[in-house]
Structure formats: C-alpha cells, structure tokens
C-alpha cells in the first residue's frame, strides 16, 4: 500500500492532468454530437477536400454508423489510443528508470521488499492510474449518449473498451520493461512515444496505414464488435505483448545491479 501511495504522490500531476484532459475531451466530444449530426453532410463534403484518406474514411463511417463510429473515434481511438498511449509511455518509463536517474534506487532496493513485488506493485499502480480515468470517461460518454437519445448496447461498449484498453496496457508494459533496463527515464519514454507517434504518422498516410500499429484499434476493428465480430487476433497480440513484457520486466529487475 505504501508503494502504491508513494507512486501516486510522485506522479499525481501527470495522473491528474491526464484525467482532466480525458474528462474535457469526453464532455466536449459528446456534447458536440447533436450539432455534428445535423451537419454531417457538410462535414462529409469538407472531408472529401482533405488529402487525408484516414479522415475521409472516419467521416464516411460516422455518416454510415452514426453514434457508434463517433464514440469509437472520439473515446476509444483518440482518448484511449492517442492520449492514454502517450501517458502510458511517460508513466511506464518512470517505473524504475526514474529511481536510477534520480539516484534513489540504492535506497529503494535496500528496503526489505522483493524486487518482483516492487515491480508488480508499481506496474499495477500505473495501470490503475491509466485505466480508471479511461474507463470512467467511457462510461460517461456512453451515459451522455443515452441522454442524447443515442443508445448503444453496454456489452458492445465494454468489449470495444476492453480491446483498446488492452492495447494501452501492452504499451504501458513494454515501456515498464524498458524502464527496468534503462538508466534514464527519458530513454524509454522517448523510444516508445516516438515510435508510437511515428506509427500515428504512418497511419495518416494512405498507402502505409495498413502497416501502422494503430490499424489494430481503429474503426475497422471496433465497428464490427457491434455485429458480434470481436478482433480476437489483435486482442491476443496485445495480451501476448503484455505478458511477455511483464515476464521480461520481472526477469530483468531481478538480475540487474543497482
């Protein structure tokens, strides 16, 4: 418990800022929907003028699927895939490398607590701080949708959220593992966030978007959930990456000299 509390105190500004950002995004996006819905044709016309195929497709899918596609883009792809991904990179990088960087590792690892326990506690704490605001804003988005007369099956929302949140978890765990083997907190953060921004840039390019990692959580995989088609293959990839990174992190932290 003390480790959990200390981790939160150390990162409260990041966690607080992230939560507020998600909340604003959710509220603004959800309450913008009635206006957007009324002017979808105009938006579609504007999108056709843009040279970005990804944006044209999104607007086209919103036109076709309505609130479900809008929810997928705003809440799952933007809040989860982009914002939570960035915070996952920052938070995960601080798991161990921050102590090495700030020279508190000698003190921390001299405490009578096993390294595995320490790593798992911090990993769990980071994951909670990352997932709770994301999950709560998803619930809020869904709730606002109900009040706007847009009904979505809660089970579909949960499944879609689970899919994206596992993507964020995998990313956080990979960063956590890199943090265990790094001596400076910026290195894993820059590596992961830089890589993901590169992936996002690729996603925006028409001919390359199919090889972007973001393709695994975009509307092509979220929309079919409504029709009972869950993206199992992608889900298992995220799960595999999470477990592999978790075991690698535990292995490395127990072998490293601090």
């Amino acid at each position: 418990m003390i480790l959990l509390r200390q981790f939160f105190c150390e990162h409260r500004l990041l966690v607080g800022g992230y939560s507020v950002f998600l909340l604003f995004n959710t509220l603004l996006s959800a309450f913008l929907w009635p206006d957007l819905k009324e002017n979808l044709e105009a938006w579609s016309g504007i999108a056709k003028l843009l040279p970005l195929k990804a944006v044209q497709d999104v607007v086209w899918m919103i036109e076709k699927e309505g609130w479900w596609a809008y929810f997928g883009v705003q809440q799952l792809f933007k809040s989860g895939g982009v914002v939570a991904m960035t915070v996952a990179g920052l938070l995960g990088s601080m798991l161990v490398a921050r102590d090495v960087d700030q020279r508190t590792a000698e003190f921390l690892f001299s405490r009578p607590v096993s390294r595995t326990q320490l790593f798992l506690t911090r990993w769990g704490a980071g994951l909670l701080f990352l997932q709770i605001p994301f999950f709560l804003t998803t619930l809020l988005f869904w709730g606002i949708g109900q009040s706007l007369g847009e009904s979505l099956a809660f089970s579909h929302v949960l499944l879609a959220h689970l899919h994206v949140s596992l993507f964020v978890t995998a990313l956080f765990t990979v960063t956590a593992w890199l943090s265990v083997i790094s001596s400076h907190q910026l290195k894993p953060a820059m590596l992961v966030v830089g890589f993901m921004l590169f992936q996002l840039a690729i996603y925006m390019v028409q001919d390359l978007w199919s090889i972007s990692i973001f393709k695994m959580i975009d509307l092509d995989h979220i929309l079919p959930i409504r029709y009972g088609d869950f993206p199992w293959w992608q889900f298992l990839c995220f799960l595999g990456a999470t477990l592999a990174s978790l075991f690698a992190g535990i292995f490395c932290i127990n072998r490293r000299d601090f």
Partner: protein
Amino acid sequence: MIRTENLRKDYGAKPVLQGVDLHVHAGEIFGFVGPNGAGKTTFLKCLLGIVRPTSGTIEIAGQEAVGQPLLARQRCAYAPGETALYEQQTGIGFLKFSLAFHLHADAKQGRQLMEEFELPLYQKVREYSHGMRRKLLLAQAIASNADILLLDEPMEGLDPEARRRVSDILRKEAHAGKTVFYSSHDLSSVERICDRVAFLNHGKILECASISEVLSKTSRAIQLIFNRAMTLEELPRAATLHWAGGETRWSLNYEGTLADALFSLKDLPVLSVRDASTSLEEVFAALYTEEGAE
C-alpha cells in the same frame, strides 16, 4: 552476525571486490575504511543484494544471503551514502515511507530522532540541506529496529554537535546488542566509535583488527615543553622511555600506558604536554603507501 567468504564482484572486466573475507560479530561497531573506489559501497550493496556478487558467500545472522537477499534486507537497516531522496515527500513522510517496509520499526522513535536532530518534520525533503538528509537517513535506519545497521559515510556533512549525538546513539545501539557496520572516510570518528576496523583497498582487505590492536602496533609519544632548559641526565630513565630533543622541547616515546608515562614526569617542571601518538589516520596512510609500493 555478518560473514563473507571470498566475496568477489566484477563490473565487466574490472574487479571491484577481490575475495573479501570478513567476520563482524553481534553487538560490535565495525569500522570499514578505504579510499574512494576501494569497494566499500559495493561491499554494502552486495550484503543487501542491491548488486549481485560474482562469487563468494554472504551470511547474515546465520542465513545465506546471496540467493535470498530479501532475508538479508529484513535483518538490516541501511543508510546509504547517496543522499538523493524522494524530493516531493516531507521529512516525516519520508520517514514513514522508509519505516513502512520494516516489520519491527518504531515510528515514535524515528520522530523523536528527527526532533533530536532538529529536523523540520513537515518541510519538503527537497528543501533539506545535505547534512539534514544525512540525519534523516540515519534516523530511519536506527528507528527501523533491525539487528544490523549498515551505515555508509554516516558522519559526512554533519556538524560536530550532530557527530557527537550520532556517536552516542550508535554506542547505545551497540550496547543494546545491535551490530553497527560503519563505512567511512572519517578516520577520527572510526577511531573514536568503532571496536574493530578493516582497511580495504582495491577490493582487498589489507588489515582487520581491533582499534587498540591497530594503534598498539604503532609508536606512542608525547611532546613536552619545560619551563626551563633540561638535559638528558635530568630526565627520568627507564627501559620503556626514550627521549629525544633538547633545551625546553623534548619528545618522549614510551611503551606501556600513557598514565605510566605521565606519572614518570610528576617531579619535572612541565609547561605543556601534547599527545603525539600515531593516529588511525597515520596507520591508514602507512598501510596504503605500503600497498602502493608493493
């Protein structure tokens, strides 16, 4: 209480500890001295499992510690030489955080120690000076109530009054049966506080003995100033007394106790007496010069 046998640690191709054999008894204050880079901190880190030894054995309180460092850490409290702390925490917050890991920690004692060291409880650690951080680290180590205190440079940055307090506290802890492993550059404090001392250089123990044993191997002398010129014939003669000097300034090398030497001067017109015996610092310098020459 602490026993290491042939303890080795290499960082890549560089050997830092080269077969350290050490035995520290329960209830003693054990001094561990050596120049920068001798391997003192690496040795402490090996004891706690912060770094993994390349080979050798470590036994702490009768239990093998290399394969199970957690057991060692449960018996030890550590005040690292590095004073980087969690800057966002308050002094009392840091104390609570560090004591929360120790089963038998005494938070009340920790708070009392902070007050005794005049540390502001609710001030952020980032506003603490180097000496205040050192005191805070000492307070958490002592209040953790572990059987073994591992202290790395505990007096560094402390004012004379704080040094005196820390010395008193460490003696009390040792008197209560705790083992104090005192790694330091500050040889005068090692000489004053410790029961035994080990000299480390290039990862090897050069000598390990009690302080009195180490000092007894060296010359003991006093320097005297008389209030009139003295001749050698006027000075007391004995097989244990060796005079050098002339006029009013003489130097006396003696064997036996200082009290006996001073007693032999009782009828002489002595103006002042100054101890000129070899200190631990000189023993240290001699040992390292000898090793360097080899």
